[in-house]
């Protein structure tokens, strides 16, 4: 496929937003059970608004993918069958609850709504955070399933696609949360940094598994099934147009195979190889600058990873477009 910048930015930016929120709410959940000190409301409030900014940036990027953005509202119609439609519904829902979660913290309007039998008071932000957590995962699943549900794009048609969207979004979000904590609540850097390391490690495992799997795929469609002629040697001599068409532009990345081979180790190093040891170092010596550098390096790596994710997928329609003529 030909990777579209709009979709690369959409999927990576909302991933950071979701991950950052999940990190903040993880801390709040621990604090709820007194496993960690409860932070100032501003820590959660501004943090969730920062997450909201990332999801908004992703939403803006997504509009650049549409030919007719003024009709975007129509895309919520087919939620019964289309994962894209589901994403279109879940993303604003997540953003809305995220806003309420942040606003509730910042405004101090956080009454205890339910008291558990144990005497534990459940605040409004806990309930809002719980809903937002479910929506964050629903959004990860919707985004991943947009790609994983396309059965003839064999590179994507695997549960690993959804798992990796969750892990990679989570890794970048928790890394950002660690940086955020280093600035506003240095005592929490270790907790969030620890989770960032664990999720980045899981991301490395998940992405390596999908790379391993995809390297061993055998395409189900061949030129023989594409045109229905049983002969071992079929060569296209003309594709019906000399000047190229939508079908030649949309489904091929246009880069050399050497570029594709080079970008694979590059994103593995940037997204996992460098951030992991640096995160470990920053566990003992937290530094805002170092964590900032880790976040930027990892995000750059994840941009390259998402580019490769699209470029690697080989659409069977390419069988019909191999020779200009």
């Amino acid at each position: 496929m030909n990777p579209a910048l709009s979709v690369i930015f959409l999927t990576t930016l909302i991933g950071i937003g979701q991950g950052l929120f999940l990190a903040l709410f993880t801390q709040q959940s621990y604090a709820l059970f007194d496993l960690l000190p409860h932070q100032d409301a501003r820590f959660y409030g501004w943090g969730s608004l920062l997450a909201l900014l990332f999801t908004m940036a992703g939403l803006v990027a997504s509009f650049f993918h549409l030919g007719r953005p003024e009709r975007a509202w129509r895309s919520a119609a087919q939620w019964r069958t289309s994962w894209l439609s589901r994403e279109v519904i879940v993303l604003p829902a997540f953003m809305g609850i995220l806003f309420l979660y942040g606003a509730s913290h910042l405004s101090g309007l956080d009454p205890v709504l339910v008291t558990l039998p144990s005497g534990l008071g459940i605040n409004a932000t806990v309930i809002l955070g719980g809903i937002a957590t479910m929506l964050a995962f629903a959004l990860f699943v919707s985004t991943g399933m947009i790609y994983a549900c396309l059965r003839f794009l064999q590179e994507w048609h695997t549960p690993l696609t959804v798992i990796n969207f969750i892990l990679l979004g989570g890794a970048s979000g928790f890394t950002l949360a660690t940086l955020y904590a280093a600035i506003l609540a240095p005592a929490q850097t270790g907790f969030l940094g620890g989770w960032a390391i664990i999720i980045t490690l899981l991301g490395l495992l998940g992405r390596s598994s999908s790379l391993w799997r995809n390297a061993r795929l055998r395409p189900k469609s061949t030129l023989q099934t594409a045109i229905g002629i049983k002969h071992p040697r079929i060569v296209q001599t003309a594709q019906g147009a000399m000047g190229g068409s939508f079908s030649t532009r949309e489904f091929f990345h246009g880069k050399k195979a050497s570029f594709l081979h080079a970008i694979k180790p590059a994103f593995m190093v940037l997204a996992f190889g460098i951030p992991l040891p640096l995160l470990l170092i920053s566990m003992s010596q937290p530094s805002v600058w170092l964590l900032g550098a880790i976040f930027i390096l990892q995000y750059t790596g994840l941009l390259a990873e998402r580019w490769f994710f699209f470029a690697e997928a080989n659409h069977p329609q390419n069988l019909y477009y191999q020779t200009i003529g």
Partner: protein
Amino acid sequence: MTQLALVIDLNVCVGCHACVTSCKEWNTSGAAGPLCDENPYGADPTGTFLNRVQTFEVGQYPNTETVHFPKSCLHCEDPPCVPVCPTGASYKRKQDGIVLVDYDKCIGCKYCTWACPYGAREIDEKQKVMKKCTLCVDRIYDTSLAEIDRKPSCVKACPTSARLFGDIHDSESAVSQAIRENGGYALMPEWGTHPANHYLPRRKTHLKIHEDELERADNPLKVDGKLPKPSKSEPTLDDVTSW
């Protein structure tokens, strides 16, 4: 239930592209607006087509065969492009099985093209909506046209009758018979899309000779019953007569 479809006979397609130009002409002139081209006379021309003819070489020289392969939307019976559409612009008509795009609802997200293994859809780069073969839905039901003209324009244009049009769910239709009797097949059966359009393979060409081609039907001698029947040993008329 009706499922309209094309049956394309690769045995007689000569790759003349008449169906391509005829399709373009009809579909760029309709109420839905033009099928836009960009730089049609420039260095890098490109444009929107609903039908294309491709050419493949099968075999190793000198045992090769050139196969011309017309390709348009196959109007799958289980179209993967329809459920993925977020707006419902892509739909399959219940009454005749034609897969269509509502150009007023399409947001141009291109997701349907990702979901089509055949590359049958092309975005109109100027109108920014998805375009695809409509089986000339604006022709085949047009009662202002003569009955014989109510066919897709590609079918009308084909000089070798390589394109048949009809209902493949009607077992007595010409298309169903052609599929049944001439080994009609569907493309990429491995994905379970059940394309409605079928292709007829290359096969031994049978010459059909009608009775009146063997013996001249309007021979005046035959009409009058005076056909001379000399025995083989007798001299013929040419032997005994100088004209």
